[in-house]
């Protein structure tokens, strides 16, 4: 759930806008062609020399040095005041805290405190108090499903870990975001750190973190923090920055202090955006559930990992479905709660523009609207007055407490009953449901694996192999120059400088060849992502019905752990680079599609109407009017698609992608290759920042 946001800077003011836009882009195109020609020429003559290829088991001095540092820290860590004292204390504090929560809420051993019935009642009551009836129903259904599917303890554990992590994120992230919005320097210092936190694959630093925070909930929470904090900080900063200048000015002219301005003007006005930040933070936290299970983090990741060991797709899918449902539940409920708590005057149609808030700077993934309370309605009809609601809540509290009390006494209310023998409901328990999913997957795989394998061979031969040869079989310096030239032509000197630095970093990691192979796959995957996203996005942008049908699938693919669909993907495409690409495509298509759909929908109706009156065909409408007008969204979708693809490189490494992804997986498992894995993680981060900056500056230049 990487949500990388552009820092909220009014980009156009900083770089001179090209006067004659058309001419510039045509000239750029010609220059790019020239670069391509030189590139192919260099490939034809210098192929196979100085490629810096490193054999799988070989390491460089840097990799060994990383190992050394790890060993020293490990020895030192035993009684060092910081590693053992400070971090150890934090870790044991967190472990104890989560342990207590687990004992009260998720544990169902008889004799422990609240049983499932009590937790369900309390959760429903709190949701009703904060978010309303519709959310309460959603929460109830989701929790019941967890119980039914035999995922009660793991599901509640996931909730506990996610909520604790998100609360810590808010405590740390909100002040940080505020500080960044108030000081450019802070922002400039912190932004690259956030970039690194988001693009660095967690496999690369999981072992060291486990070293300091022990194995268990604390380690899982810290891992989650690293990944979930950046979206919150960025969106907070963006929200505060995008409070209209004249509002701030008006406040200032009234003579308020900086603190008052923040508390009384900026924060309230940015509140909706900040809530979105918290939502994104929650989704990111959930996406770490599977990884956290590798360090004994409690939650739904455990059944997913366990199912993968035996290649039981059905069981993994059921647990994955639990994660998806929890994601939807948290998203809808927090959105509804935040809308309810805003003063009536400020209530805004929250789903008015799903996808993008504040122009082209901020990416939001809005989940479908069917469960969002009052979403998009603008007005809000309530059946009860506030005092009436309070009365209802107070009256309901009694049965809730009684129920909670009984849940500690009766086995049936403590441990979720096994309903596998019951007709209809029994089909939803883990065994049968998993079985159905297995049957369905097998049927689909058998039916189409011939076709898909042919498709794979074709794409590999026509697209992947030539491009990979072009990028990785060259002397490294030729490719470095090509990338620099492309960065400069597309984005100007700023991204060119970033590119130069990133290239130096990749070179320094000693993994240039692997980085280029990874880059190739990333680019091919992005092309496929955009092809799919444009087709689906246009359909969704033009028709409500298509949107309603497609959107839940997009949500599902975005939140379901990739481990769930690895096995069917392997059966369809074998262990190949193409499978790695497809895994990345599955993850990146949703965000890109949502952005494209939003862009198409955002084309002014007047323009569409005007075009229609000239009698053009539907095809002309799409290709000549809607897509060109949505160019901004297309560029943004490409940028996001790229970054999402890159975040799947590690998963790709597990299904035949090789290169950097595999090195990271390997470094994670084999102690002596730790340093090499870490270096690969750094190389991926460098690639990510480079691609992001090029795309961003290109967007600023051509995207309008």
């Amino acid at each position: 759930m990487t949500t990388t946001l552009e820092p909220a800077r009014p980009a156009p003011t900083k770089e001179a806008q090209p006067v004659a836009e058309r001419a510039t882009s045509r000239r750029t195109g010609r220059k790019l062609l020239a670069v391509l020609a030189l590139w192919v020429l260099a490939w034809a003559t210098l192929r196979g020399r100085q490629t810096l290829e490193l054999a799988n088991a070989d390491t460089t001095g840097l990799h060994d040095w990383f190992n050394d540092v790890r060993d020293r820290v490990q020895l030192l860590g035993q009684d060092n005041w910081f590693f053992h004292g400070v971090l150890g204390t934090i870790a044991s504090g967190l472990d104890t805290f989560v342990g207590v929560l687990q004992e009260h809420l998720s544990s169902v051993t008889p004799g422990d405190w609240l049983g499932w019935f009590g937790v369900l009642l309390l959760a429903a009551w709190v949701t009703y108090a904060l978010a309303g009836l519709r959310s309460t129903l959603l929460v109830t259904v989701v929790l019941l499903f967890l119980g039914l599917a035999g995922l009660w303890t793991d599901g509640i554990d996931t909730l506990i870990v996610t909520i604790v992590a998100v609360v810590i994120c808010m405590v740390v992230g909100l002040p940080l975001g505020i500080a960044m919005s108030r000081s450019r320097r802070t922002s400039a210092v912190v932004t690259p750190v956030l970039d690194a936190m988001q693009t660095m694959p967690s496999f690369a630093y999981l072992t060291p973190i486990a070293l300091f925070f022990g194995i268990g909930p604390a380690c899982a929470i810290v891992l989650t923090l690293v990944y979930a904090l950046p979206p919150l900080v960025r969106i907070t900063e963006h929200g505060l920055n995008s409070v209209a200048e004249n509002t701030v000015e008006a406040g200032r002219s009234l003579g308020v202090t900086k603190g008052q301005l923040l508390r009384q003007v900026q924060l309230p006005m940015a509140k909706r955006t900040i809530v979105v930040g918290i939502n994104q933070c929650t989704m990111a936290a959930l996406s770490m559930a599977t990884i956290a299970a590798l360090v004994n983090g409690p939650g739904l990741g455990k059944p997913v990992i366990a199912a993968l060991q035996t290649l039981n797709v059905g069981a993994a899918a059921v647990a994955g479905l639990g994660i998806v449902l929890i994601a939807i539940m948290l998203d809808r409920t927090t959105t509804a709660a935040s809308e309810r708590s805003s003063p009536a005057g400020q209530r805004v149609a929250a789903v008015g523009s799903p996808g993008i808030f504040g122009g082209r700077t901020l990416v939001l993934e809005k989940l479908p609207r069917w469960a969002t309370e009052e979403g998009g309605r603008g007005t809000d009809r309530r059946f009860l007055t506030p005092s009436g609601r309070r009365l209802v809540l107070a009256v309901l509290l009694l049965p809730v407490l009684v129920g909670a009390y009984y849940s500690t006494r009766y086995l049936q209310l403590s441990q979720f009953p096994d309903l596998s023998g019951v007709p209809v409901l029994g089909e939803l328990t883990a065994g049968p449901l998993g079985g159905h999913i297995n049957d369905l997957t097998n049927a689909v795989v058998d039916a189409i694996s011939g076709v898909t394998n042919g498709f794979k061979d074709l794409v590999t031969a026509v697209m992947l192999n030539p491009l990979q040869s072009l990028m990785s079989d060259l002397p490294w310096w030729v490719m470095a120059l090509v990338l620099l030239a492309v960065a400069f032509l597309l984005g100007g000197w700023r991204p060119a400088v970033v590119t130069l630095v990133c290239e130096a970093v990749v070179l320094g990691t000693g993994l240039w060849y692997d980085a280029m192979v990874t880059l190739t796959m990333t680019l091919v995957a992005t092309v496929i992502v955009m092809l799919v996203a444009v087709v689906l996005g246009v359909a969704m942008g033009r028709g409500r019905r298509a949107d309603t049908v497609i959107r839940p699938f997009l949500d599902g693919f975005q939140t379901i752990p990739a481990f769930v669909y690895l096995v069917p993907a392997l059966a369809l495409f074998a262990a190949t680079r193409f499978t790695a690409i497809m895994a990345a495509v599955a993850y990146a298509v949703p965000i890109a599609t949502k952005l494209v759909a939003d862009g198409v929908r955002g084309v002014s109706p007047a323009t569409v109407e005007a075009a229609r009156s000239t009698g053009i065909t539907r095809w002309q409408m799409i290709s000549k009017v809607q897509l060109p007008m949505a160019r901004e969204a297309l560029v943004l979708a490409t940028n996001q698609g790229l970054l999402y693809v890159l975040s799947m490189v590690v998963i790709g490494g597990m299904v035949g992608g090789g290169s950097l992804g595999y090195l990271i997986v390997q470094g994670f498992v084999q102690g002596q290759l730790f340093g090499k894995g870490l270096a690969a993680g750094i190389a991926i981060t460098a690639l990510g920042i480079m691609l992001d900056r090029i795309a961003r500056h290109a967007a600023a230049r051509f995207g309008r």
Partner: protein
Amino acid sequence: MARATHRTALVAATAALALGLSACGGGNIEQPSASGSAGGGGKECGDLRIAVNPWTGYVSNAHVIGYVAQTKLGCKVTYPDVKEEVGWQGMASGSIDTIVENWGHADLTKKYVDEQKTVQDAGLTGNQGIIGWYVPPWMAEKYPDITDWKNLNKYASMFKTSESGGKGQLLDGDPSYVTNDEALVTNLKLDYKVVTGGSEAALITSFRQAEKNKTPLLAYFYDPQWFFSEMKLVKVNLPEYTDGCDADAKKVACDYPPYALNKLIATKFAESGSPAVDLIKKFQWTNDDQNAVSEMIANQNMSPDDAAKKWVEANPDKVAAWLS
């Protein structure tokens, strides 16, 4: 806004109160799990934390030992899920008591057993780890001579894939092991290219597809592994392993050595006097035993504890030997 915050606080307070109230009722349900403690005799067992590494054979070892410790010795057993290296770290730092199937790991052994002395060897599991190149059963049947490495080049063209660049593909890459396969291919002058699969799931799925569609596949694999109870893969014989033939990783031209899998135990735990220490040290069984339990877990979808129970009840003699 102020009012909203107030209400949130109120709700939170009420919920906390409710939680507290209901907590007072805790402890009323009978504890059924304490009954096992009678069988142990002698010292209290207390906690036993068995690291669980992410492969099914390991899960079988862990849960059989855990089940015996729980029912016969009255231990309170937990199974932290960790990756191998993290498990070693955990033993050193005191959060894990034992690892019950260890594949070599010379570097970690040196660091923790020889240097830090925080971990001790607890003897062999009795399982033989075999690493090598395998083909699906249908190939061994149709091309019987393929099991000799000398014939591999004859069939190389059959193993071509989109990944192997015109040569035959040798599918590798379970990330857990350093393999010599690249060196082997070079030194045995084989017309093959090593292609990285990337995970156990990738290898198993490839074998399943290959057997089902009768497509050729040559891949790195290992035994004991539950998959063998589903499909009898056939090993390709490389030049026989002799002591020291793999000394120089770059010049290896022989088969992998058989691994004698062992158990590890944290020094702190070893000195605690828990009766489980003896159990872990005495635990031994065969590849067939392990594969039988793994098969129940992997293919019959039994829970590890149920599978362990079934095996323990069917094999009272072996279990008795561990407890003597």
